[in-house]
């Protein structure tokens, strides 16, 4: 090894420390920049009408995004109803039955692939499978797309959380003659409750900010959501449409919607992380 003076080595060390501290500071600054812009530009749009009224035609002042807020809630709820049970069940099989088998490995691998698949591809897939066969855009197809995105996330977290439950607990239940399904749902699930809930919350947070899979499934609509068989208004696609429009009122509404989406996604994330952190202490 080449001999260097201590002064030089200390100097290089200080330099690297400085660079990496600055980089960390830069990351924080960018986060601060983005969040403060969303708050500053979004706040003026948030008022009573924003939550209660339909969007006004371009040029007319006022109006709100009540239909899109409701639509996003409904689509997300429907996605949760489809994605969470299947995801949980898949997680149960991986943790309780599959374990290290070939099939389990293949499913895990597929889940990882699915998690890494760009969400717009899921949108294209659902478009071809549902929108093209039924002949029209629909809220339900948007919910299916979101459910597909949630599915692998829920499955993998559920597996991880169930695997943390000590096997002594399962064995004790089984030794008492409890059937497997009861042991899993009644005992293993109960002790993994917090973890499972956190996983589901994180998955919900992730999909509620998604736009790309809804662009050509749910589409958007200026009316109240009446049926899932029709295009359904939702916040994220509204942001996209309004941001690209030349009308200032609409752009303001888009900022309001951005604040709402960012606030709820980040809020959910922070709460569920805090949950995990609190529990691990």
């Amino acid at each position, binding site marked *: 090894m080449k001999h260097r003076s201590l002064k030089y080595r200390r100097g*290089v*060390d200080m330099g690297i420390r400085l660079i990496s501290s600055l980089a960390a500071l830069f990351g924080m600054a960018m986060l601060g920049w983005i969040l403060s812009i969303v708050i500053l530009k979004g706040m003026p749009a948030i008022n009573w009408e924003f939550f209660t009224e339909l969007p006004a035609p371009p040029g007319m002042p006022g109006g709100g995004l009540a239909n899109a807020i409701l639509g996003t809630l409904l689509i997300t709820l429907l996605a949760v109803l489809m994605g969470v049970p299947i995801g949980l069940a898949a997680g149960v099989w991986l943790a309780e*039955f599959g374990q290290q088998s070939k099939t389990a490995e293949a499913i895990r691998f597929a889940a990882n692939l699915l998690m890494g698949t760009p969400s717009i*591809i899921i949108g294209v897939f659902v478009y071809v499978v549902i929108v093209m066969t039924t002949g029209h855009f629909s809220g339900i197809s948007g919910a299916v797309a979101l459910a597909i995105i949630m599915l692998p996330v829920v*499955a993998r977290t559920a597996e991880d959380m169930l695997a943390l439950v000590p096997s002594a607990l399962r064995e004790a239940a089984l030794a008492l003659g409890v059937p497997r399904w009861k042991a899993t749902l009644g005992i293993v699930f109960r002790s993994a409750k917090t973890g499972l809930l956190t996983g589901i919350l994180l998955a919900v947070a992730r999909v509620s*900010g998604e736009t790309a899979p809804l662009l050509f499934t749910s589409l958007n609509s200026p009316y109240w959501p009446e049926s899932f068989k029709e295009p359904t208004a939702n916040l994220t696609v509204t942001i996209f449409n309004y941001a690209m429009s030349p009308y200032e009122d609409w752009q303001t509404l888009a900022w309001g919607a*951005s604040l709402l989406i960012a606030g709820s996604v980040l809020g959910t994330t922070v709460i569920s992380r805090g949950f995990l952190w609190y529990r691990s202490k």
Partner: protein
Amino acid sequence: MQTKTHINLDPAFRWLTLASGLAVLLLVGSILYTLVMGAMPALKHFGFGFLTSQEWNPAFMEFGALSSVYGTLISTAIGMLIAVPLSLVIALFLVEIAPPAVRRIVGGAIELLAAIPSIIFGMWGLFVFAPFMADYIQPWLASIAPGFPLFQGPPMGIGMLSAGIILALMVLPFITSVTRDVFQMVPAVVKESAYGMGSTTWEVTRKVTIPYGIQGVVGACFLGLGRAIGETMAVTFVIGNRHEISASLFAAGNSIASTLANEFTEASDDLYLAALIELGLVLFGVTLILQWAARWWLRRTARKMGAVR
């Protein structure tokens, strides 16, 4: 002793959960199948020329993916060039340099950055960051490198460079967190021995931590790359959406994902739609390969490091 006979639900339970697991497997297969089938008309009509033609003219039914593929590659490359070094030094900061309290705050902020939805990056990018680029960064780049082909043309703000920088911000948290985990996998004993020899923090990092974790870092970069390539909304907002290839990074362009986001609902013709689905197929294929490579690589690394430990 006579016990009450009851229906054994266990096989049903087992079968039901297995079916759910297999659904995941089936989904990946059917996505691939659906995309191939949907793209078939375009695959037959254009053949391999689809990937090498730059013409994209729906009015004349001419579709070539080259400008979208080029835009995806260039914006991703810019993003990775910025994100990888930054993520490495931030991970270093988190593992080796920061005191625990600072570590928690910075780590939390980086995780928060990862949670911001793509569309929020898009809004910020279009209305705040692009004008900032046009007013400050792009004129400055043009002035320090006059005549440099990459920095030619009017500073519009939107374009390839802005898209790349926003991509960098979006993948940075992912690469940082995987890199941090890899750095933390280095056994403390090995690092402590180096410190005991009188090494500085940087020397320990360069000679012990990085060589030890280099493979994991490569895997992390693959994961980040897979994410950057399919990123849609943020890119669609700022890339400019123009089906043309220009040498300058200031110019507007498009990416596969942005083309899909902009044109999918407008595709009135079957061939147009098939061409768009084929673009999707190309994107899906690339991300599949990247994911595959990354997982394989990370797993190999974990096994190796486990053996060393």
